[in-house]
């Protein structure tokens, strides 16, 4: 167990926890704004993005278990890039509706999902970097961070999209 890795992971979880807590609080205080936000969000596309990210997590887990690490890390990174493409496509048609909304909820939604998207992109690039010369310890570390990104998305989903 690497202490620094877990300090990083819990720091990330604390930041996302605070942001999701703020979203829950604001949406509980202003249910009509949440209803308008949900009309603007593309739930089926979020479902497809979730499946893509989970598939990517599967390949990262296979790499960490020692099965063809280079090939599985590249597959996991491609899944991450696919998730990014799907989220950007969703933003493309959600943004005009979100821009027309008042209040803090759409801003918070963009902050949370945009921050997560940046994490996915960065860690997907890290997956590719580790795939270049995969050492078992580095593969396990980058896979753990990738699963954290998976986990955060699985918590964003019920708070923002499934409400």
């Amino acid at each position: 167990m690497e202490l620094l890795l877990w300090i990083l992971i819990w720091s990330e979880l604390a930041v996302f926890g605070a942001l999701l807590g703020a979203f829950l609080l604001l949406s509980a205080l202003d249910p009509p704004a949440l209803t308008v936000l949900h009309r603007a969000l593309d739930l089926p596309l979020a479902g497809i993005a979730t499946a893509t990210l989970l598939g990517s997590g599967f390949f990262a887990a296979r790499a960490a278990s020692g099965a063809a690490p280079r090939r599985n890390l590249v597959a996991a990174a491609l899944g991450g890039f696919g998730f990014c493409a799907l989220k950007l496509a969703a933003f493309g048609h959600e943004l005009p509706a979100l821009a027309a909304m008042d209040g803090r909820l759409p801003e918070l939604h963009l902050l949370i999902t945009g921050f997560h998207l940046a994490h996915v992109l960065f860690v997907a690039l890290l997956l590719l970097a580790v795939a270049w010369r995969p050492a078992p310890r580095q593969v396990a570390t980058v896979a753990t961070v990738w699963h954290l990104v998976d986990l955060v998305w699985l918590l964003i989903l019920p708070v923002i999209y499934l409400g």
Partner: protein
Amino acid sequence: MQLRRDIPLAATLCALLLATGASLLAVAWLPAGPRGFAVAALSLVKAGLVILGFMRLHRESAALAGGLIGYAALLCALAGLRIALAG
């Protein structure tokens, strides 16, 4: 948190995809109260599957695995409660 055997990766992925589909169906079909419970429970199951099935964190540290599942349970419960109360 000692599991006798690791959950196979393919089974973990299948369960995660099924739970994701079930969550989307719950949002479309269930009224607010059951929907809140279903979304919270399915989201917690998915988080648990990632932690135990993909990360296999229980092998390394049961406390860390329990901490992550507890964190996920708190957020899922709050999300489910909000859905159940506010619709």
